[in-house]
């Protein structure tokens, strides 16, 4: 299956809703990690940020979801992601991917997420095995 995922194939995008503070809090609860810079504006602004911001792991989870929408039966064997920009409440992320290589069942995919201003907030690579 999925023979169409050859080098150069773009994956179907996933666009998030505008990320709310509630969404950030919900993710923090789900991973049981309550660093207040993602939850409390007073703490975040005391460190010079304009507000709370999303944890990099949340972007990772959205990109993971984009990938599993495209390749529901593939097993991820590696996942690397580099955070480039802060993600603020109100931001809308579009998670994207393109197949860079395919050898038998192993697919390497470049992945990234852009915000509504067209800035890339994180990028990396995922390897899947079908």
């Amino acid at each position, binding site marked *: 299956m999925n023979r169409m995922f050859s080098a150069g194939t773009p994956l179907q995008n996933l666009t*998030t*809703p505008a990320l709310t503070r509630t*969404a950030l809090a*919900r*993710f923090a*609860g*789900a*991973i*049981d*990690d309550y*660093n*207040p*810079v993602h939850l*409390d504006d*007073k*703490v975040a602004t*005391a*460190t*010079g940020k304009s507000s709370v911001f999303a*944890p*990099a*792991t*949340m972007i*990772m*989870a*959205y990109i*993971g*979801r984009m990938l*599993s929408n495209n390749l*529901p039966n593939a*097993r*991820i*064997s*590696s*996942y*690397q*992601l*580099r*955070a480039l920009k802060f993600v603020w409440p109100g931001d809308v992320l579009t998670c994207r991917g393109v197949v860079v290589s395919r050898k038998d069942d192993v697919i390497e995919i470049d992945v990234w997420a852009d915000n509504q201003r067209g800035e890339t907030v994180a990028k990396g690579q995922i390897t899947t095995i079908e």
Partner: protein
Amino acid sequence: MIWLRHLKKQPMAISQSDLQSWIGQKLELSFDIERSQLRRLAQSVGDAAELPVVFPALFYTVHHWLENLGLNMHTAMHAEETYEYFQNIAAGDTINVEHCIVEAYRKEVSGGELLFVVIESAGFKKGEAVFKGRRVLVERRN
């Protein structure tokens, strides 16, 4: 407001020997993976179903550990995350996780310095490796 009180403290000065002493420090944790937890994680990013890959973020409740060492987790950023997965993790599994600081160093930049801490982690199920990960944290100090 406990966090605000914490912020008013001067950030702990970190010496070269402190950084050296961080290298090799370990944290070992054990997690019982529950179905409801997987569902909650999937739903938090809008999925109706469970995530097919259990996300190692679940095993990364390390910020108190690092704070106790002296890293300011309010200003530290996750610069990069890399994971490799060897087998699936499912509800009902018990995953033992070992975190280890493998690098800690500083780099001078204009107007201050950057502190880098690299943590390698490994997850095991019944003694067999299920994932390994590496994360780079960066804290800016002025």
